[in-house]
């Protein structure tokens, strides 16, 4: 139950990071090999001491990272933030009981206190026959350079980072006189390191880097009504980041086309989702095949392995191994090498996405999708998770529609995976005779996900990774567009 205010660029660029942890973690001065050894040593020591304290299995995670961010608004620096931090977490098992603790205090006393509370806390949890860390034979790490870390994200001097943000915003402000205001241009960079150790002797480590530029222009029409939209580029290397001008111009284009948006009458028409919003449909599929929802029966896809759940044109893949990917890691949150899993093949549900616990509950093998935060039991997270591209261009798909809705933004969280009921606020463009004719807003899109997955009638060729979840443009039939 949360209420969120939409700040599209800022929230999106956070989700563009490959995992939630990168939001929290951030580091001290890195790049000393000594520190690396120390963190690995620290993690192994914590595991050893947990075992000495009577644990039958233990697992320790250490994260550190640093972040830089700046926002420039109307040409002036608005915020500048630069810092680092680290945190450590331990999970202990006494037979089939588990508990976890974490701390940001790396002093001897802090670590001691963390360990002691974990060993104490495990006494109050229940015997769960399925609890435990993976088998020793399952553990390991992908070899070779996965292209996840580039020091160049910090190579720009501070003034040029500010300049990057300023140029992005300027390109938007210069694009059209109707762009009179701005929520800013921003440049972010971050690097993070993660170490995982467990009592089977596994010790793994990886580093990742990230940088992004985002622009949020505000346009105003003759009636004084304002619209805001955004665009961004994100990359693991500064060398791969789009130019600030390119981002600013695209942000301006997306904002300007919203001016003069109107409401429409309630209608049953084809709906086209642009790649940014289509990826939300993939997230619903993810939630539906997430082992945690499946074993609890909290997903309408539970028990549907081998069955048709989508049209024959739909193939969905999760691949944690792609070089340089936003969802790539050498091992998952439990120390198992990541892999490629076909989730849906030609409309047939082929695999759930699982960690060790949910795999055991379902009598299946883990798909190495464990995502480990600092505390609690591991969850399930995507690698690089995507809908395979189709043959047509987005323009061809739109051209075939006489009367329909092209969605560029969803508002709210109205998807119920238990029932499949789906209802969200939307804005975008109305399609008339194959063309994007005029902007629309304050409308809803509703249906049921069970039908919607089967009614993905077109998938475009424009698959591009702008985060760990990616979708091409798609067309869905049979939805209700709610308006006047």
């Amino acid at each position: 139950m949360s209420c969120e205010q939409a700040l599209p660029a800022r929230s999106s660029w956070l989700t563009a990071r490959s995992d939630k942890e990168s939001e929290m973690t951030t580091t001290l001065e890195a790049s000393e090999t000594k520190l690396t050894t120390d963190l690995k040593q620290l993690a192994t020591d914590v595991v050893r001491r947990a075992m000495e304290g009577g644990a039958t299995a233990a697992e320790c995670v250490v994260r550190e990272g640093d972040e830089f961010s700046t926002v420039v608004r109307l040409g002036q620096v608005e915020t500048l933030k630069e810092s680092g931090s680290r945190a450590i977490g331990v999970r202990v098992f006494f037979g089939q009981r588990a508990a976890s603790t974490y701390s940001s205090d790396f002093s001897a006393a802090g670590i001691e206190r963390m360990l002691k509370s974990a060993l104490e806390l495990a006494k109050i949890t229940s015997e769960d026959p399925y609890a435990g860390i993976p088998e020793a034979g399952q553990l390991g790490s992908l070899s070779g350079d996965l292209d996840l870390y580039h020091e160049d994200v910090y190579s720009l001097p501070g003034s040029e980072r500010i300049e990057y943000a300023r140029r992005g915003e300027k390109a938007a402000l210069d694009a059209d006189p109707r762009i009179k205001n701005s929520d800013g241009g921003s440049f972010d960079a971050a690097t993070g390191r993660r170490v995982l150790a467990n009592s089977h002797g596994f010790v793994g480590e990886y580093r990742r880097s990230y940088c992004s530029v985002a622009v949020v222009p505000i346009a105003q029409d003759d009636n004084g009504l304002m619209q805001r939209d955004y665009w961004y580029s994100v990359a693991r290397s500064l060398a791969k980041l789009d130019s600030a001008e390119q981002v600013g111009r695209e942000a301006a284009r997306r904002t300007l086309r919203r001016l003069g948006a109107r409401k429409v009458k309630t209608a049953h028409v084809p709906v086209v989702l642009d790649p940014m919003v289509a990826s939300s449909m993939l997230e619903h599929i993810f939630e539906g095949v997430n082992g945690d929802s499946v074993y609890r029966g909290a997903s309408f896809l539970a028990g549907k392995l081998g069955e048709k759940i989508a049209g024959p044109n739909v193939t969905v893949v999760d691949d944690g191994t792609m070089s340089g990917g936003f969802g790539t890691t050498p091992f998952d949150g439990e120390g198992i090498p990541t892999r490629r899993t076909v989730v849906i093949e030609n409309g047939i549900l082929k695999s759930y996405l699982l960690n060790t616990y949910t795999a055991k509950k379902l009598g299946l093998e883990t798909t190495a999708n464990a995502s480990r935060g600092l505390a609690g039991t591991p969850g399930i997270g995507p690698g690089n998770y995507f809908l395979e591209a189709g043959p047509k261009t987005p323009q061809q798909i739109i051209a075939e529609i006489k009367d329909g809705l092209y969605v560029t933004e969803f508002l709210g969280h109205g998807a119920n995976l238990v029932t499949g009921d789906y209802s969200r606020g939307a804005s975008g463009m109305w399609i008339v005779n194959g063309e994007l004719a005029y902007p629309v807003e304050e409308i809803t899109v509703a249906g049921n996900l069970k039908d919607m997955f089967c009614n993905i009638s077109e998938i475009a060729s424009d698959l591009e990774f702008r985060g760990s979840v990616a979708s091409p443009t798609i067309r869905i039939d049979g939805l209700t567009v709610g308006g006047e």
Partner: protein
Amino acid sequence: MVIANQERFFFEHYGLTNHDLETYLTAALSAGGDYADLYFEYLTSTSLMVDESLVKSASQGISAGCGVRVVSGERTGYAYTDDFSPQRILHAARTAALIASAPSKTTVVGFQQKPARSLYPVALPSVDADITAKVELLMRADRTARGYDPRIKEVRASYADELRHILVVGSDGTFAEDSQPLARVNVSCIAKTDASSGRGSSGGGGRVALDFFFGDKTPEFFAKEAARQAILQLDAREAPAGDMEVVLGPGWPGVLLHEAVGHGLEADFNRKKTSAFAGLIGKRVASEKCTVVDNGTMPWRRGSLNVDDEGQPTQETVLIENGILKGYLSDKLSSRLMGLADTGNGRRESYEHIPMPRMTNTYMLAGQDDPGDIIRSVKNGVYAVNFGGGQVDITNGKFVFSASEAYLIENGQITAPIKGATLIGNGPDVLTRVSMVGNDLKLDEGVGTCGKDGQSVPVGVGIPTIKIDRLTVGGTARREPGGFMQ
């Protein structure tokens, strides 16, 4: 009046002295700037989860650090450290100082602690309470939900609490300490039959001690409520689509106010003129039956604070009075730049974050109408009593909130339950269509978490039963003239 916070947590635990604080602030202002502050935080938390009647997860943790902010004109420099050593704090102070290159010199004024309220004086913070008692709360919730109806198939109950010690000192003499407890119980249920399924969830809490859950708001209370909602959904019909009359029930549906007007009235958006409400002070933005306030001073409430995260005492701020827009929610930066009073709404998620104007507890005052009369006045409409949450686009004012429990109103009678549907409207004018306001103001149970610019903070909402003459309902059912076709 009780003077709270004499515990001097950071002074006792980290040997901090006033002299240290002055040294750090002086370093922060070494390159100039108008203002600097330090935010020390020490947060301990517990979370527990019962699933399949087993205590599957238990965790505890500590997160502590210090954030340093330097403000120069409209510029903010920020740096933080998770290490309280003088070297690390000085390093952060000098990093934050990089933002300021102003010739202006600000000196650090002697610290002055204002007498503060004591809105949540817990004798034993729940983080320090016996953990087996917390586990027992969840086991009780689990038993109650499972016993409610044989169609309840899955129950998950969770408990979370925290205790946050803060110290805020500023170069203007600001000096404030607080210790902020927060606790919450949540229950979610899944109901199933061969033909249908449903989910329900309920929870509550506040800045309270564990004994709160032994009063009226027991685990059984939340468990029954979650189970009731899940069972109800089994028979829900399709929701209608299109514009219609909507009645909101009292309490958590106040999320309407949070999204439709609250965010739009945060001073930062209005200073930058990026809000659809910019320039509307003194103008009519609601029917005269509507008076909306933000109130951070309500004892024990989830959204309340003795002082905000800039050390300013919280207050009750009138946002809309009899339909007229009266004021904004501001923090130090906005109040200085806009020449407004600081309303004590400067909040942040943690020491890693820059404070900004945020809501506390936002609600509409009770009106004169009888809730039964409100329902009876509707020919064809929707009665929405529970919501999953909402979202707003500040700039164009469009907001949504998602009903998770709603009913059709037909000829003045509440009839069938309907499936979850999103309601969408326009912030600056939705309240102008409020034609009836009930006499039954209620606040939510203490479950709200608000996200803005990547920062989450606990908030409260509240509303009496209200009637909105026209709002767009995002269902799937086709509507026939004069009624709903199912």
